């Protein structure tokens, strides 16, 4: 009599266990990555599954623009991912306000917070609560084709200020070389110019001040001057013909094919641009250089010349996610796995003391730049949320085409901010 009961109990437990196992699936949604990165994430998922019986981790990838468009709807649905890629900033604030994210402080392993720099945590915190984790920092830099700049006789080290840069652009034009390639159809690659110039002109607090409405908000002199300086560049017609009908992906491939001397783009473009080139090889490393966005000689407010623009990209945890999902996030972000990513040069890991693993000179330089910068501003189109961000991208494209004045551009951004 005893045995059948025990057997029954055992069966029940097993069945229950089975059911519980089947239930723990962790869905991770991310913007499309290149093959090496996909392999890396897949390995992390399999390792975590091996360590945690009954847990399955599924990665899903969606292309950049489609991801931004789909995420809000997904988050409201039953198919919301447990963990999803995020650019931090205002978007996280909006998602928290709508109740889509969950605080994860209590779910993280003991002492985990200390492995991540404070600036990174800040990008994923709202009112002192942590809703996600940063994975890597990116910097927008001027990728340079040194074969072309050498051909035009340009000394890259001499490009310090915006005026130097404009001069270099003119020299390239005179030499019959396209100075800059840009993916104007996607607009955000053009917003880097406006944002960087605003940061240089207005100092580290230019954006936060504008958000609070100080100095005329987004219509402050710093933003207007940024538009003027940007148009000084565009009046030289520095971009490839038809740049406004070129997507980011095409532009990045064109640069890797040697179609232009400069490409203002994030460090993340290093591997993808090779894959997008016609040959699949891209430019050899010894023909590539990165230079920081030039300083401005006579800024409206001091302090912006040392600032960097880029991203603090990472992951947000949605409200319905299980504790296992947070455990996986912590696993993915632990120092060992971050170090491995640095070693493979997949991205520049943000975890404390992991950047020294990298050999790639470009990544090392970017890591040093970010560390040395006085302030790391998150891309304005992400930092200010979908609506204001899109307005900034719009005016940047309009400024590049000379379709609006710097004053109108600033006014349009302010209007979008007022009505966000």
């Amino acid at each position, binding site marked *: 009599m005893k045995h059948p009961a025990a057997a029954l109990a055992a069966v029940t437990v097993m069945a229950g266990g089975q059911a519980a196992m089947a239930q723990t699936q962790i869905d991770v949604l991310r913007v499309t990555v290149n093959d090496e990165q996909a392999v890396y994430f897949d390995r992390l998922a399999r390792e975590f599954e091996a360590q945690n019986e009954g847990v399955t981790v599924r990665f899903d990838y969606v292309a950049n623009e489609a991801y*931004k*468009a789909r995420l*809000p709807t997904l*988050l*409201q649905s039953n198919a919301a991912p447990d963990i999803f890629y995020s650019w931090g900033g205002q978007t996280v604030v*909006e*998602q928290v*306000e*709508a*109740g*889509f994210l969950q605080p994860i402080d209590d779910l993280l392993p003991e002492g985990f917070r200390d492995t991540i720099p404070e600036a990174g945590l800040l990008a994923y915190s709202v009112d002192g609560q942590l809703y996600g984790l940063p994975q890597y920092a990116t910097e927008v830099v001027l990728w340079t084709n040194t074969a072309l700049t050498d051909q035009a006789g340009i000394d890259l080290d001499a490009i310090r200020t915006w005026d130097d840069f404009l001069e270099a652009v003119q020299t390239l034009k005179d030499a019959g070389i396209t100075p800059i390639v840009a993916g*104007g*159809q996607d*607009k955000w690659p053009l917003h880097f110019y406006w944002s960087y110039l605003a940061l240089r002109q207005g100092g580290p607090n230019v954006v936060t001040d504008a958000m609070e409405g100080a100095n005329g908000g987004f219509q402050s002199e710093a933003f207007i001057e940024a538009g003027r300086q940007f148009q000084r560049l565009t009046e030289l017609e520095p971009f490839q*013909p*038809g*740049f*406004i*009908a070129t997507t980011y992906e095409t532009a990045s491939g064109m640069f890797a094919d040697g179609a232009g001397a400069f490409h203002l783009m994030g460090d993340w473009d290093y591997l993808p641009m090779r894959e997008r080139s016609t040959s699949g090889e891209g430019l050899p490393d010894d023909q590539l250089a990165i230079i920081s966005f030039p300083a401005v000689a006579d800024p409206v407010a001091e302090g912006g010349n040392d600032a960097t623009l880029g991203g603090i990209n990472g992951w947000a945890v949605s409200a319905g996610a299980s504790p296992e999902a947070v455990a996986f996030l912590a696993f993915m972000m632990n120092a060992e796995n971050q170090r491995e990513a640095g070693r493979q040069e997949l991205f520049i890991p943000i975890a404390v003391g992991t950047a020294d693993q990298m050999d790639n000179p470009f990544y090392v330089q970017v890591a040093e730049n970010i560390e040395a910068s006085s302030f790391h501003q998150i891309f304005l189109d992400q930092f200010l*949320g*979908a*609506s204001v961000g*899109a*307005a900034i991208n*719009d005016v940047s*494209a*309009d400024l590049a*085409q000379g*379709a*609006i004045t710097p004053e109108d551009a600033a006014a349009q951004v302010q209007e979008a901010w007022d*009505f*966000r």
Partner: protein
Amino acid sequence: MSLDAERRLPASARWRRALLNGRVSAVLILLPPALILFTLFVTLPLGESAWYSLFNWNGYGTPSNFVGIANYERILNHSVFHIAVGNTLKIVAVSLVIQMPLALFLALLIHRKTPTNAVFRLVFFLPYILAEVAAGLIWSFVFDGNYGVTASIAQSLGMGNVFILSDPDWAFAAIMTVIVWKYFGFHMMIYIAALQSVPQDQIEAARIEGATRAQVVRYVQIPHIRPAIAVSAFFAIIGALQVFDVIIPLTNGGPSNQTHTIVTYLYTFGLTRLNIGFGSAVGVILFVGAVTVAVFYQRIFMKRAEA
């Protein structure tokens, strides 16, 4: 037996007769599903949009920031909305003045049933079958100034690279070309069907009287297919109000928002920017516009065409 029974009999007989002649049962069986579907998928969403349009709402959670008609004021004062309405009217004009005559001309050429005509019909109808997004992508290659057909033509003419889609003055003309190309086959098919029902004896009678080909078309065929023309014009106008998926892959509304239609305007400024309240207000304006057109058109042209 009693008076009650006698009274009841005619009532049930009436009831049975009603059931048998099918009117009541048809209403009972067919109305509920239609009514439920119509309520769920038409009336409710409409009401919801109208409600959301009164809020400044980013689509997250439930709307709470009531702004009254502020969204409508913003739309009506927004320069891009003016461009979008202007572009939509241009599409209407091009549909009526270029697309429909072209379709009619081709229909007159190939409405007779012959094997060669069947081939032509198929060829002209193919663009309509193709998915809009695919058509947009194909044409974006055609218009590409570096590699596309445009590039080859410009090169053979000895011109520099031409980038039609990034030229604010020409981008919309390019889009209208694609729209005409995409939809003329549809209108052509309507005319072909109508032309085939024109009584042959009338055409022959006119011929015997010495009417030229042009006169036959002018005085016999076109008057006969007037209802079909009225229907096709109606489709052209309503279709123009809805143009969306050709534009997104071609220009995405750019350069400088010069190629928006009302629907791409709704999508860009409402949905992708998460101004759901704003987008709903655009939707309401579009709906009111479309209903107005439909009602007036029905009243004026469809009646006249039938008469």
